[in-house]
């Protein structure tokens, strides 16, 4: 057959090769803004974090939040916004205890950790945070599973 029959294999092979060599920019082109700005800055982050905490309090998988009252939830939002800001280059200093200390005795399972992440994703979707910006934040949070599990 014609040589053009092999265009797909050429294209796939080139894409795999180039991406493995890092020649295709698979990541976002880093504009001047930080990941914090891509999330929408303090107002948007406060909005989706408030939404996420409310979802956590209603999520049957997250039994730890069943007793969380409004005052405690509000303090958690403030704490998390500072944490997200610190993690995404927003210039904040991480406020309190580290993850291991903060979740001591919580005995979080992978299922519960994922429930936290899913509710956070829903909240970010509701706040129209771009998918790629969401993933930048989730990439910073994902390794915390190791600190939060079974402690």
């Amino acid at each position, binding site marked *: *057959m014609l040589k053009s029959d*092999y265009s797909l294999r050429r294209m*796939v092979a080139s894409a795999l090769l180039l991406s*493995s060599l890092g020649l295709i920019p698979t990541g976002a082109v880093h504009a001047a803004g930080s990941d914090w700005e891509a999330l929408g800055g303090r107002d948007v982050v406060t909005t989706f974090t408030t939404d996420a905490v409310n979802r956590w309090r209603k999520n049957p998988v997250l039994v730890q939040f069943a007793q969380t009252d409004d005052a405690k939830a509000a303090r958690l939002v403030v704490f998390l916004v500072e944490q997200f800001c610190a993690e995404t280059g927003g210039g904040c200093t991480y406020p309190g205890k580290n993850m291991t200390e903060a979740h001591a005795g919580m005995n979080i399972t992978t299922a519960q950790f*994922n429930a936290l992440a899913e509710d956070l994703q829903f909240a970010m979707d509701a706040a129209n945070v771009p998918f790629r910006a969401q993933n930048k934040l989730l990439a910073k949070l994902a390794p915390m599973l190791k600190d939060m599990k079974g402690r």
Partner: protein
Amino acid sequence: MRMKSVPACLAGVILVTGLVGTATAAGFSNKLLATGGVSTVEGSAGGGLATWALIAGYGTDEQLGATVHATGVNLDDYELRSYGVAIGIFDRVELSFARQKFNTQSVLSNGLGAPALQNYKLEQDVFGIKVRLLGDAIYDQDSWMPQIAVGIQYKDNKDDTVIPFLNGALGSNIKDSGTDFYIAATKLYLDQSVLVNATLRLTKANQFGLLGFEGPDGDSYQPEFEGSIAYLLRKDLAVGAEIRTKRGNLDNPGLNLSEDNAYDVFVAYFPTKNISITAAYVDLGQIVGALTQNDSQRGGFLSLQLGF
């Protein structure tokens, strides 16, 4: 023997019941969306062609998960169907089974004096086990370490027409079963929204085993490579490309038996954790060129997966 096997059997039942009980108490389907991959034509979790290190289904490290799949690949001169099931145990072990049906349709067999090769439906069963050894593709975002798994696939080709025809024509002793061994490394680069997989497979198969194992041009294990890259467009939508090298052990130029690498470009959609749909365009290269009008077998790939 009987005296021993009854308590052993009971212990086995109690163990399994205990595991299922523990897993059921831990709930179901709490892995994140799409993190079980889709089903390969060989039944294991992966892309469409390449087996990945991910464990099938949506069970976490305390849960069970399972998938069933139905896949159709309509090539220029052939059709391939694959149906199967995979079970994920504690996101650690994967057991899989797939039945492949390969239809030769209206191949050009008459010139070879072998009309029985036309519209022949060849079947192959693939039994797989995969064990995750190291790393976590999803959570280890602060490390270069991928998720690494090793696995075995035993392939039982039930063909009684094509392999005997080839053995007659070549004076060879192509086997109808074989065992593949592989090691797979999968990594999600979440901050880039990209998933990368690389798998090394030791195999004696000809055309994935559809044309048997070993042959006149080789009877030992050869290393083959499976590579995938996927880009996440949304949490429920990924596009990507794959390559799978294959050489086989049949080089006969008269029958055009030599193999080419396989390629695909795919889009996978995960509307919920219970369903995924994968569509792809595949190029499997030459498959018994003497029987076909096209010297490269290309076509559409469509796969439906259900699970939890």
